């Protein structure tokens, strides 16, 4: 008997015309790791909330949910709250009390556990989660990743059998996300906790999921294991599905025309696949014809690699890999090449130039920027990388003129920012904060857009607002309160507001954070459009693949200075961590080859 079973579950919000969840049937076995995926607004969050009775939304429900064979509504309140743990998207809002230790104890207090039992469990769990050094800290001082770890531990404190996770990684940087995911995986592996998780980061999730459930418009459209999901997504030839494939998997499928029985899901598997393919190429010429003769007509790709039957397997690998790269970058459509920039730089000043920037938040804290020199040329689309707390956001704020450097200057086309009037400065340089909600100050999206248009000096502000909303596909949402928009919609709305000022330079702080793959592609297309029209873009990001797909220049911020700056390809080839998985495949092969050369066999 299934642990958690849903039968013909249908749910509609009180004033909604169509149900948010319709006829969903699902059976989850104990200890399964289920990944819920699907576009934003497909009902993932609603479904998860229906599984957690305490936070179930109000509305019309039909069908049945049973936990351990007992209908959810028949469980006693206390036991049910302990059985099912929930971690949500925003790390901050889930923290209730002031210190980490008390936060972890909060759930146990609610259950009226005796003090000794609480102490013991807390001692054990904080050891498991590695939270001991943080116990005495105030929760508001923690990083996002630490906060989310505390939230996870606080849910686990009640020893649930089912853990529901509603996009827990969306607000985290990739490193923190991977750490948290590792912890979730450990809980699943070592303790057998059933995990149901909705998430957009497919690269990390598909390899570890036991089951993938894909939802669209409130219905389950796919329910099965990861590899079958990869094949199915490829077979559908639908961009909405395609976007959900890990890039390594997509690359492998592209190069083998979707014939793979076991598509590789990780870099490791992809490498093993390359080796085995090449072995088979060498073994029989017939397999070469099979490979090359595959369904080449199905997708326009410039030919299938491995046709030459190279004697040097690594050489052919590289041919094959570089093919993948050009696929990756084909939508970048870069109007200006780097050469043009260099040529221009000789005559006109760079659009933005930072000299000797030095910044610290206060006397006691270490300096964030330490004598940073940098130039942004007209037509650049720069991706700025850097670790957590490396000062990317601070640098962007300094470049936007939101903060003043302690020493040094920022010049916009040769004119010091400090001398420009705020109005002129903010009109020339658009800034999009990491949290798009910070840009809203009115009751509706329309009011916010209109205010932005009026400030930009539009003759008919209302019309201008409606026009840009139409351009960004937000026309339907104009009457909504900004807080009622999804993360992606908020991002697009804030971008639209910024663009109404027609900035020459647009600074974006983590624009892809929390976006599902399809929305990310949509955002990329909008940005590419703006870039084509002549806006210079600078984005601080952790999203290596997004940068690889769009940027024409990449830089790395470290110790308060720019330590690497260049065109994407050489930039990524020199990196191991800040590199898309495809490049990791290359880098890994290179070292393997070197290793093979020095190691006599």
């Amino acid at each position: 008997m299934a642990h958690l079973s849903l039968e013909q579950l249908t749910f509609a919000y009180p004033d909604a015309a169509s149900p948010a969840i319709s006829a969903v049937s699902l059976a989850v076995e104990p200890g399964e790791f289920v990944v819920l995926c699907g576009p934003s607004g497909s009902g993932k969050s609603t479904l998860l909330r229906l599984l957690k009775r305490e936070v179930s939304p109000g509305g019309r429900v039909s069908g049945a949910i049973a936990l351990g064979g007992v209908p959810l509504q028949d469980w006693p309140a206390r036991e049910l709250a302990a059985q099912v743990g929930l971690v949500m998207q925003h790390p901050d809002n889930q923290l209730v009390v002031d210190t980490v230790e008390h936060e972890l104890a909060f759930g146990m207090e609610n259950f009226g556990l005796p003090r000794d039992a609480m102490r013991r469990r807390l001692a054990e769990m904080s050891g498991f989660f590695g939270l001991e050094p943080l116990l005495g800290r105030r929760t508001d001082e923690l990083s996002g990743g630490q906060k989310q770890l505390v939230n996870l531990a606080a849910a686990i404190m009640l020893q649930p059998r089912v853990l529901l996770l509603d996009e827990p990684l969306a607000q985290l940087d990739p490193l923190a996300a991977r750490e948290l995911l590792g912890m979730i995986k450990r809980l699943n592996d070592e303790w057998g906790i059933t995990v149901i998780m909705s998430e957009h980061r497919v690269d990390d999730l598909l390899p570890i999921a036991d089951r993938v459930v894909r939802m669209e418009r409130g219905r389950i459209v796919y329910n099965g294991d990861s590899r079958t999901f990869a094949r199915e997504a490829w077979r559908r030839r639908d961009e909405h599905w395609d976007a959900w494939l890990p890039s390594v998997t997509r690359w492998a499928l592209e190069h083998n025309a979707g014939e793979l029985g076991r598509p590789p899901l990780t870099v490791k598997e992809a490498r093993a696949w390359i080796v085995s393919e090449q072995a088979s190429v060498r073994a029989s010429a017939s397999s070469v014809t099979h490979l090359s003769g595959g369904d080449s007509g199905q997708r326009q790709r410039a030919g299938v690699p491995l046709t030459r039957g190279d004697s040097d397997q690594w050489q052919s690998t590289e041919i094959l890999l570089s093919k993948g790269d050009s696929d990756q970058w084909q939508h970048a459509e870069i109007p200006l090449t780097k050469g043009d920039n260099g040529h221009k730089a000789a005559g006109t000043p760079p659009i933005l130039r930072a000299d000797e920037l030095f910044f610290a938040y206060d006397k006691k804290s270490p300096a964030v920027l330490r004598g940073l020199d940098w130039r942004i040329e007209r037509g650049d689309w720069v991706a700025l990388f850097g670790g957590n707390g490396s000062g990317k956001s601070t640098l962007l704020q300094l470049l936007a003129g939101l903060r003043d450097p302690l020493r040094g200057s920022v010049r916009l086309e040769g004119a010091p920012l400090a001398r420009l009037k705020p109005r002129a400065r903010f009109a020339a340089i658009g800034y999009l904060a990491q949290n798009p909600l910070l840009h809203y100050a009115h009751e509706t999206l329309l009011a916010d857009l209109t205010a932005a248009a009026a400030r930009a000096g539009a003759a008919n502000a209302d019309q201008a607002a409606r026009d840009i909303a139409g351009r960004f596909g937000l026309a339907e949402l104009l009457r909504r309160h900004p807080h009622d928009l999804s993360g992606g919609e908020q991002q697009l709305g804030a971008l639209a507001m910024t663009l109404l000022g027609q900035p020459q330079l647009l600074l974006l702080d983590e624009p892809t954070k929390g976006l599902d793959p399809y929305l990310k592609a949509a955002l990329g297309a909008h940005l590419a459009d703006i870039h084509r029209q002549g806006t210079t873009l600078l984005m601080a990001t952790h999203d290596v693949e997004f940068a690889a797909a769009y940027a024409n220049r990449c830089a790395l911020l470290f110790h308060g200075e720019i330590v690497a700056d260049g065109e994407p390809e050489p930039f990524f080839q020199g990196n191991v961590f800040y590199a898309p998985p495809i490049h990791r495949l290359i880098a890994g092969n290179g070292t393997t080859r070197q290793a093979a050369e020095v190691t006599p066999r």
Partner: protein
Amino acid sequence: MSEGFGFRSLHPTVVFVYYAGGITFGMLLFHPVLLAAAWLAAILVNVHLDGGREWRKWSIPMVAGFILILVTNPILSHRGRTVIAYWGDMPLTLESVVYGVTLAMSIVFVLTLFVSYRLVMTEQKFLFLFARVSPKVALVAMMAIGLVPRLRRRMGELMLVQRTRGVTVTEGPLAVRARNGARIVVTLLAWALEDALQTADSMQARGYGTGTRSSYFGYRFRARDGWTLGGLLFCAAGVVAAWGGGHGIMDIYPRLGSFRLSAGDVAAMVGYIGFLIMPLGLEWRDRRAWRILASNN
């Protein structure tokens, strides 16, 4: 010095008794000599706790308050027989001057006690005491404490970003600034409410409201707490007895009495000073332990 050392290691109940008694007696007893001694004792406690740093931070407002009371009392009150001077046709009496000094001393002394209160009675200790009276109110207080820094940070971010779209309180005509300020505050509040809904979900998800709560934070009542409490109660009994006998209070109005301390006054003072410096015994004891530890290494 950290939590768990000296005075700070005491059980919240003992700390509460100490401050409740210290402040009550500070208001009951009214003798300039006695209060001056008590004030010195309170400063000594402050110096032991953090080298007097926190107290120095408050010293300027305290001195200002002291002078203010000192000056205003003789001006506003003309009671007393002994006129020392006239200001215009206003008599300044010796009695009201002395009364002012004593009153100022008593207030500054209580403030000094409060400064050390803030150092010793942490939020957690306070809430531990309070949670027994009303767990819900204690929880709300705890949440509010967590909320303030979050709101303040978000306010900063909001003001920074809203400047880019011209919503700012630092430029433009006053009316526009006021409107912008209001807009930022409204946005902040709407946001806080939105967040509060999620916090409520998070609380419910962890079983809040499913039955009686227990409290995680506990302080063990140790032997030193018992001894200290006993000592405090003993001293307090002495002070109360002396005060009940009419001692520890100087006759000021209508005619200034003598500054000399009677036997009863001395009893009250000894009891009170003993009460106030009782926790210093623990500070000394724990410091000696450190010194011995250090000299052994």
